[in-house]
């Protein structure tokens, strides 16, 4: 996984609530397993007109915010489908961190599997930051080491993040590698469970033997 420590750059305000993962990336765009074109399709319903031409008014199409590494979003960002392609698509656009009052639970987990940092801040704070980035040119910084957002006005705002998720992001740790260290515990748990809850195991094991 790509580690995350600090990002500095423009923060694009996209303050609509409930932006779902279908809007972030249409499912049809994921039936091609090659991710090479994802940047073309991220947020396409907002970035493009139905005829495929660019909507110049959309925030990420405005010269200042093209390629912005930070997104300021409305509440419940990434709700809906579990497609991890939503995270890949945002990262393909160059986005490394999203700030919102809340996130869809599965999207939130998927971010940490890929090195995208979701930051939860109160709605009023995100709104205030959106106001600052809309009017000024100064960049914003997200510092995971110090758990700080440094606003375009230079104000330092601290944010909460789960300790283990923070460590994994900072070091780019792989969950599978970490879990495989517990393999003997898994084996022991399963052996005990086969005796305690045989109905979980026997029907599927028997079927596998027969079919």
């Amino acid at each position, binding site marked *: 996984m790509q580690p995350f420590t600090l990002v500095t750059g423009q923060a694009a305000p996209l303050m609509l609530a409930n932006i779902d993962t279908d809007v972030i990336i249409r499912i049809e765009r*994921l*039936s091609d397993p090659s991710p090479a074109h994802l940047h073309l399709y991220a947020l396409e319903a907002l970035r493009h007109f139905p005829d495929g031409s660019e909507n110049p008014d959309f925030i990420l199409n405005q010269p200042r915010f093209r390629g912005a590494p930070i997104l300021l979003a409305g509440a419940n960002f990434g709700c809906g489908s579990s497609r*991890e392609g939503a995270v890949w698509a945002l990262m393909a656009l160059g986005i490394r961190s999203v700030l919102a009052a809340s996130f869809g639970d599965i999207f939130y987990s998927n971010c940490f599997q890929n090195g995208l940092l979701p930051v939860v801040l109160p709605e009023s704070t995100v709104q205030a930051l959106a106001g600052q980035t809309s009017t000024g040119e100064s960049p914003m910084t997200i510092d995971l080491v110090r758990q700080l957002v440094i606003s375009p006005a230079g104000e330092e705002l601290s944010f909460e993040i789960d300790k283990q998720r923070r460590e994994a992001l900072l070091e780019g740790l792989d969950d599978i590698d970490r*879990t495989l260290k517990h393999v003997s515990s*898994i084996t022991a748990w399963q052996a005990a469970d086969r005796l305690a809850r045989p109905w979980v*195991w026997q029907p599927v094991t028997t079927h596998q033997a027969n079919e």
Partner: protein
Amino acid sequence: MPHTVFEKIWNRHVICDLGDGWALLHIDRHLLHDLSGPPALVDVARRGLTVRNPELVFATPDHAVSTMPGRTGGTFPLGARLRVVLKEQAHAAGIRFFDLGEEGQGIVHVMGPELGLALPGLTLICGDSHTCTNGGLGALAFGVGSSESTHALVTQTLRQRKPGQMRIRFEGTPAQGVTPKDLILHAISHLGAAAAAGHAIEYAGSTIRAMKSEGRLTICNLSVEMGAKYGLIAPDDTTFSFLADRRFAPQGALFDAAVADWRTLITDEDAVFDRDEMIDASAVAPTITWGTSPEHAIPIDGLIPDPATASTAAVRQAQQAALDYMGLEPGKPLAGTGVDWVFIGSCANARLSDLREAAQLARGRRVAQGVTAWVVPGSEAVKRQAEAEGLNRVFREAGFAWHESGCSMCVAANGERIPPGARVVSTSNRNFVGRQGPGARTHLASPAMAVAAAVTGRITDVRRI
């Protein structure tokens, strides 16, 4: 210490405490479909690892397969490769694969309960957010992304943090024409699309206890539309009867032993919920969405909201954007709006009971001129049973198209889409912008309300036909 049913199941599956509130959780069942399965299986191979417990993993193609009558794996060419990769990788790993035309194939969340793969007290995952459907049988079931799916294939575990506990009690007897779909849409509109973020929802109360398992699956299906990764209902005799003799459920003495254990899966009386809500089910009307979030739902006899009266600027902006996309005017009744399409299908409402209910209303009526209406059964088994009961003839005689099983136009991943600008009444679970096709205008409703719209050509109160 008193526990919720969720906590009881959770605690049982903790292999080790990882500290800071994290647990390594055993996963009892893992389901794969043709969109999320291939990347996870390919990732396992790429890492040079193997599937730890293939006997606990089951796969079927549902998202990217055509549902046109007489379809084959190649009817939708883009999906053909995904199905082949899923099939080949599943076989190589020793994972049971239910192919097109075989009992077991179907929308993964219809197939799990139908085969008895979902059972009370189990942990069950799938790379699909509607995995919470299986909670209707008392399973701790949740959707994951492809990275977590890979993790579970390799280790049969996931690293998880316990969510907050939320309860929604439905009390009372629903009025005629009010189905589980109406109850859950009402709850989402009342509480909000993010109300349960970070929480597991337990549905309880007299309405739920009196509800059949199929309806409970519908209720739990839409948990994620309220922001919850998990929704569940404590198992009871209704659940045990539903599961008896299912293909992969325990049989005979083993079933009895399981039931004895499952009876302990109830929430203790003094268990503490972080949030507790009550909904009077007897006061709920047939409910339908007007906008682009499942929280944009109103009673069928209600008025389309006026953004001018919204409580905050953010709500006003969201409502206005939704009205523009949907081509609707504020303050007007939604009933009477003309429709172009009707879709009866999806993991929310394509079980046999849904099709029976729809067929009963469609019998002797005709789909209105200018309306295209599809019925897409949730699984091969649902399709066969519906045909044995003659439901396909009822639908065809009424002018509905009768399809093969799959996700179809709920997610439009298989080339089947609502055309741009067309208005559809759909029994699915998401009315997001572009969900059923770019520019498609979706109104979510029950199967009965979908039939009412099909035969009148307008959004119609089912109680009036």
